């Protein structure tokens, strides 16, 4: 039984799908953010596995950039959640409906 890059990429696809389903199903902004992290990690896994299959380091280099973007996103996103919470005392995204016509 040899584990090819395809196996890891399938695992990545499964993690990405779960993350996407989580974003669509959940209402808690924090958990939606965790699902975004899940999707970013799934892509990282594909990068690493693909880089190994190709014999190239570029996959791992790409992971670093995804990681930095994820860190920046978490910093700004959590600051937004806290700012909303101070106004609303809730992290439920369905309550944010001011733009509704």
């Amino acid at each position, binding site marked *: *039984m*040899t*584990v*090819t*890059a*395809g*196996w890891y*990429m*399938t*695992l990545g*696809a*499964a*993690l*990405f*799908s*779960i*993350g996407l*389903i*989580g974003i*669509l*199903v*959940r209402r*808690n902004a*924090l*958990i939606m953010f*965790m699902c975004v*992290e*899940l999707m970013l*990690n799934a892509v*990282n896994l594909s990068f*690493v*596995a693909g*880089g*190994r299959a*190709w*014999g*190239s*380091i570029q996959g*791992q*280099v790409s*992971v*670093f950039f995804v*990681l930095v*973007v*994820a*860190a*920046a996103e*978490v*910093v*700004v996103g*959590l*600051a*937004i*959640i*806290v*700012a909303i*919470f101070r106004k609303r005392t809730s*992290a*439920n995204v*369905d309550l944010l409906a001011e733009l509704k016509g």
Partner: protein
Amino acid sequence: MVEGILFVVLAATSLGGAMTVVMARNPIHAAMGLLGTLFSLAVIYIINLAHLVAAVQIIVYAGAVMTLFLFVIMMIGVDKTEDTSETIPRQRLFIGILGLALLALGGALAIGDRFAWTPGTVRTEPVEGTIEILADRLFTEWLLPFESTALLLTIAAAGAIALAFFSRDGRVEK
């Protein structure tokens, strides 16, 4: 063989953690599930010879990002009263179909013959992700994107501070 066993175990733990994130009522449990997934992925990176990426994964994700998440969960309180009933009819069904379709597409692309897209001259022996090899690429070929990420992080930090300190009418909150 060893890699096969490890893959099965780690795939199970990472998928279990991911399901916990989506299903858990308590945000703390969701965070713990995400932590399990992140650690499983770190071990998978080590199997794939990405040693530095695995270390950074644990330090940045399991260390910094998860600490930040838990800090915010504790700060705004554990909200277990989330209403998970759907307001859009049949949304759950469409979500399920979409998720399964995405999984099938990704799996088919990954396992199928289309994965053999090897273009031209590529080394096929795996490259070990040591600090030297990664830094050699990062500071030569990828130097400009690398410097741009520094700018991105600075902007993100400044944005977070601005969000925390300024109210809507522009005055600084004490």
